[in-house]
């Protein structure tokens, strides 16, 4: 257990270093100067030079990189060029939207996909299975941002039940916040639910033919109990693996969905920072995403241990 943790931490640090070097180089290769963007079409060359100096952009690239890295090591993520505030605060502010959104989407997709997949497996090749199949194909095929637009038309414009976008902030109340995140979470969850349904169905189908499920039935357990107590827990490993993988896609999908629903999340921040060439913000956000994905994978590994006793024995 300890050795897993150490190995993971080392790989986290190494990966983040590589990612940071990569993004810094790529951002520098991109044409565009944040100072020139801020000053617009009328600025004179001396004004531009003054701004570049005050932002520290006149220093050589390796110095800028090392200065930023030293800051990060001490927990200082630097200042945004465009907003002029510490990036750590910006990310923290945006996380209060993106994390609950991603979490809601995960919960929703699991809540829909697992029962649907299990039932489809139990009645495989029947009409229920066919309907579940159509549902999952459609939800995988339809892009999340388009689903978002349809949901807005139906639930905000026509029915007026939920806000069309924007985020009132958690200080407006838990319910107001959840209401604002509900439609985007559905839009984000749907494609995930489609994939998970397929995975859950296949996994349960595999396990159902295993000896131990037959034994469970043979010793007189009801069909229901045999499925939920024996088949489903053993089918969870591929589902959890998929969930871990999909978390990455969820973050990427959040960029689009946050734009459609006008949510001030981390994805929107990254998008804005890119178009303004706010290199520091870009750096920090990408670094944060990378760390998040690595940590997610680690959590998935831990989940394996919890699910599968055999792996627990091996780890000790």
């Amino acid at each position, binding site marked *: 257990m300890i050795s897993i943790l150490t190995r993971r931490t080392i790989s986290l640090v190494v990966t983040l270093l590589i990612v940071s070097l990569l993004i810094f180089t790529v951002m520098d290769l*991109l*044409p*565009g*100067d944040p100072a*020139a*963007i*801020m*000053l*617009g*079409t*009328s*600025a*004179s060359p*001396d*004004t531009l030079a*003054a*701004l570049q*100096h*005050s932002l520290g952009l006149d220093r050589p690239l390796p110095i800028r990189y090392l200065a930023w890295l030293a800051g990060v090591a001490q927990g200082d993520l630097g200042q945004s060029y*465009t*907003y*002029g*505030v510490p990036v750590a605060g*910006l990310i923290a*502010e*945006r996380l209060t939207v993106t994390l609950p959104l991603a979490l809601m989407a995960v919960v929703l997709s699991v809540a829909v996909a697992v029962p649907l997949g299990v039932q489809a497996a139990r009645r495989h090749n029947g009409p229920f299975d066919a309907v579940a199949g159509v549902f999952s194909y459609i939800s995988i095929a339809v892009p999340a941002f388009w689903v978002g*637009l349809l949901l*807005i*038309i139906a639930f*905000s*414009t*026509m029915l*007026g039940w939920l*806000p*069309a*976008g*924007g*985020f009132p*902030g958690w200080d407006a109340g838990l319910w107001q916040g959840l209401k604002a995140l509900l439609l985007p979470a559905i839009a984000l969850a749907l494609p995930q639910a489609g994939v998970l349904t397929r995975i859950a169905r296949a996994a349960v189908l595999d396990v159902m033919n295993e000896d131990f499920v037959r034994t469970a039935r043979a010793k007189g357990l009801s069909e229901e109990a045999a499925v939920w107590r024996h088949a489903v827990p053993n089918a969870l490993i591929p589902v959890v693996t998929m969930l871990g993988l999909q978390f990455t896609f969820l973050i990427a999908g959040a960029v689009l969905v946050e*734009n*459609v*629903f*006008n949510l*001030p*999340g981390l994805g*929107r*921040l990254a998008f*804005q920072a890119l*178009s*303004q*060439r706010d290199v520091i913000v870009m750096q920090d956000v990408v670094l944060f995403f990378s760390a998040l994905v690595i940590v997610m994978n680690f959590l998935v590994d831990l989940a394996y241990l919890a699910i599968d006793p055999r792996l627990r024995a091996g780890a000790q």
Partner: protein
Amino acid sequence: MRRALLALTVSTAALGAVLPAQAAPKTSVTIGMAVEPTGLDPTVAAPVAIGQVTWQNVFEGLTTVDKAGKVQPQLATRWEISPDGKTYTFTLAEGVTFHNGVAFDSSVAKFAIDRARGADSVNPQKRYFAAIESVETPDPATLVLKLSRPAGSLLYWLGWPASVMVEPKTAADNKTTPVGTGPFKFVSWAKGSKVELAKNPDYWNKSAPVKLDTASFRFIADAQAQAAALKAGDVDAFPEFGAPELIASFEGDKKIATVIGNTELKVVAGMNNARKPFSDKRVRQALMMAVDRATVVDGAWSGFGTPIGSHYTPNDRGYKDLTGVHPYDAEKAKALLSEAGFPSGFSFTMKAPQMAYAQRTSQILQAMFAEIGVTMTIETTEFPAKWVADVLKAADYDMTIVAHAEPMDIDIFARDPYYFNYKNAAFNAVLAKVEATADLAEQDKLYGEAQAMLAEDVPALFLFVMPKLGVWDAKLKGLWENEPIPSNVLSEVFWQE
């Protein structure tokens, strides 16, 4: 000079959901904007969104620009200009305080102007202060600007967002917590989402009572989401709605008013005048004559927008309609091209930014140039980053297309270096004469001459002025219909019962 407004107030309801009548008059407003400002200090960065939130709401200037585009007194109640045009003596308003209680007087005004023109200033319009030689403060209510040369547009420039008055203690933090003298105080900024303002109870100008108690600006980039927010009532107004093709979707909703006016956004296809064949005036004129502006406006912006013949808008004083100088005439264009030595046309590359107006206009131009045998390849470039680097700074392009947002910026054709590479001493002399006089009528005449020179010379293809697609709650009154300067002035906004 001003174009009649086309005000469409649409009738017949399609969507139900009528709100219950409200008892007390509403005193809050939510204004939608497509672009979030990057900071809230208009004196340190160029994006127009900064002024659209803060100018005249949080910050005020010595002078201001009214909804007709005219200069009006503000924190300077009156002024005298010496006969040689080199000394401006301002009398400042009394009893003015900033939102933090600091009094506004000539020493503060001197600080603000010196900050804008100083060596380490990052003011995006720093060039406008270049003529100022010294700032003197004989007494707290008097400010004297001594100029090295006459600057006929100085009073106008002092009304700009980049020239607003800031005070020494808070100036450095205005980027995140702006402190001004305006009718609204800054309350909060949830980055990525909204800026909130509240009425300033101690506002100095008692002759302009403010009716709103609170105002918030919400930032919604996606045009579909903008429309949805308006229809759902989440946003009361979108003074600059982003998508002309969606305007029709508001028809039939009698809760919503659609008010079409003019902005200062001049859509021009700039040409590299230093590069062949654009260095030949006849080639530029031929390309201009290949363009049917009305078709461009129809195709690119759903018929909203006003064709222009020079780098000037109907909002601007001294405007002349010069669309008739090189009207659409494909035959004449072909003849002129032959005369210039291109009987079978030529090929070049258009660097078009990703914005919808630029992409659509480029495609239409491409088809129109094909009619006269000219082949244009469209290369999409990323705005602002790549465009600023390649076109604006390096002038590495044949033709490009962009909407110039700064009001009254005809002088960009006199700047050197500037991406057009247009060099015309006679034109520069006319603009120098504008600055040499403070006589408005004389200035208007000179601006007319300058417009005519550009229309004749065609350093860029002058296409159209972006419309101001105002879409707002039909009961909301007092928003500007035109936009002679990028802004969302809230001081006169109120709800009609």
